[in-house]
């Protein structure tokens, strides 16, 4: 039986480039040859200067962006050049859960419906997806507020709803873009508490952050500078 070299890594990027193009055709390179490997069950934080390509990297891992050049192995399979919407949507839906800085909940829907939405896209029947959503919301202390709309919830509560949404299809990988960036420190701590549980559940977490306080929860920090990996195992200098 053939076993690929990349088998240990749930995510592996090889010489990944990403450029944006201006209207006049000018190329703006954002990622300039990224190489990184993330093991299954690892909690990785991506740090770096603003404009260094952190969010672009996360969007590439999240299959929201096509690569300009390079290879992206997901579970050992190179999906870097996959353009098919059905496959990409399937990956985003089933294999990954996205958490955003600004929560990005649907303001018209209740917490319950927000959480259940990815399960709707996955084709789950209404009863099943709402039951799942309820269980998840209860597990983060939101049982009393399942019918509240996002505008009726605090930032911390909204982020908890968003976390539940990312979990509803039980994905292997959680992708988070500054998950505590819009929260006060207490809510931020609560959110990081939930993140540490992900590791126990065996999920791989990739989190973009610019604060050491948050990054310290990670097993490993990848530091980006100017579109390249400066350090694959960056050590925080402070006493955190």
């Amino acid at each position, binding site marked *: 039986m053939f076993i690929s070299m990349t088998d240990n890594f749930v995510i592996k990027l090889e010489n990944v480039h990403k450029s944006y193009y201006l209207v006049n055709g000018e190329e703006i390179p954002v990622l300039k040859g990224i190489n990184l490997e993330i093991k299954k069950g690892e909690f990785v934080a991506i740090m770096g200067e603003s404009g260094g390509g952190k969010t672009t990297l996360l*969007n590439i891992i*999240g299959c*929201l*962006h096509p690569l300009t050049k390079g290879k992206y192995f997901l579970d050992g399979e190179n999906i870097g050049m996959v353009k098919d*919407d*059905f496959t990409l*949507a*399937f990956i*985003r*839906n*089933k294999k990954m*859960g*996205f958490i*955003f800085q600004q929560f*990005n909940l*649907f303001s*018209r*829907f209740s917490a319950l419906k927000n959480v259940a*939405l*990815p399960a709707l*896209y*996955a084709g789950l029947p209404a009863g099943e997806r709402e039951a799942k959503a309820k269980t998840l919301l209860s597990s983060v202390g939101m049982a009393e507020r399942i019918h509240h709309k996002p505008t009726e919830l605090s930032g911390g509560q909204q982020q908890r709803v968003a976390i539940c*949404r*990312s979990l509803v*299809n039980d994905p292997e990988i959680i992708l988070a873009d500054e998950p505590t960036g819009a929260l006060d420190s207490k809510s931020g701590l609560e959110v990081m508490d939930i993140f540490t549980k992900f590791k126990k559940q065996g999920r791989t977490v990739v989190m973009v952050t610019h604060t050491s306080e948050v990054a310290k929860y990670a097993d490993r920090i990848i530091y980006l500078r100017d579109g390249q990996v400066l350090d694959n195992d960056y050590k925080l200098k402070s006493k955190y």
Partner: protein
Amino acid sequence: MSFESLLAKKTRTFLSMLGIIIGVATVIAVFAVGRGAQESVNAQFQNLSANSILIMPNRGRGFTSSSKLKTADAQLLLSADHIASATGAIQGNSTVSYGSTDKSYGVIGVDQNFITLSNLTVADGREIAASDIEEKAMVAVIGQTVATDLFAGQPAVGSTITVGSKKLEIIGVLEKLGSRIGMISVDEAVIIPSSTAEKSVLGDRGQIMIMTTVDNVDNTGLATTSITAILRNEHKLKANQEDDFRIMDAGSMVAAAQASAKTLATLLTAIAAITLLVSGIGIMNVMFVTVAERTKEIGIAKAIGGKRSDILLQFLLESIILSMAGGIIGMIIGQVAIPIISYFNLMTMASSTTGPILGFTFSVLVGIFFGFYPAFKASRLDPVDALRSE
């Protein structure tokens, strides 16, 4: 999901539905008008059997401006090939008064065969007899409505009414019929001997008409040829002169009237189609605005695993719900409007099932057709660009 999105913007939802509402209501009204026209054509010809042939004067052009057609020509036509019966009549309008009541009614001058041939029955008194024609008798048979209007339930036979300036004695009252002869409703007509009408009551104001029947519908052509020959001879027309009469057989008359009713319906359908088209463009506009407004949501939906088809379907459903709701409201308005319009006698309308079905179907089709492009655009948005928008 689609419902909630629509409810969130009630005013806009309503305004974009307005076009569809008007469109569908128009479709229904149009079909009702078309149906009404059809029914009035049918009513007009309902006691005209397929084997009747009608002869009317042809005033022609230029110097042959007069027609020699007389009601008495009917008697000659009895000898024409394949003609089973013939009766002459002269029609017009006149003021009829009795006591202090006076009103305008249709006046029909007829020969002795008319009442029987037209399937009319005398409820009280007697018919117009051959002797009345010969004597140019000043007598009249009146329709039910005339009797009710003038005599209000009192026996009318024996009374004298004034038609125009002539005094006529009522000899009979017809049963209620509800049908028309030519353009005159029989119930609202005063029927008098043709000779009396031609000589004094109507004179030149009367429209002469000879009604004949063919022994068999298949012989209509032969009968027409024969009638033409007899009348040309009687009117002493030279070979180079045009006929001073027109011959119309029931079949082609009904066909012509139905064709014109159909033309009307086609025209109105075109108007309705344009209304629906315009309303469709309105819906497309609103959907584009909606997509632009919800760009961020589209990005989120994609990030959490929404496929292009999911997004396409959601927006398409919204526009279908929008147009369908408009369709239903339009259908209700249309159906309610028909009896109201008919009640005020503004237009002849008859509700049909085709109208609502077609109106509703088209509203859904408009929703699909005009909702597709905005929905397609939405489904193709780049997820990261969409997420970045506010």
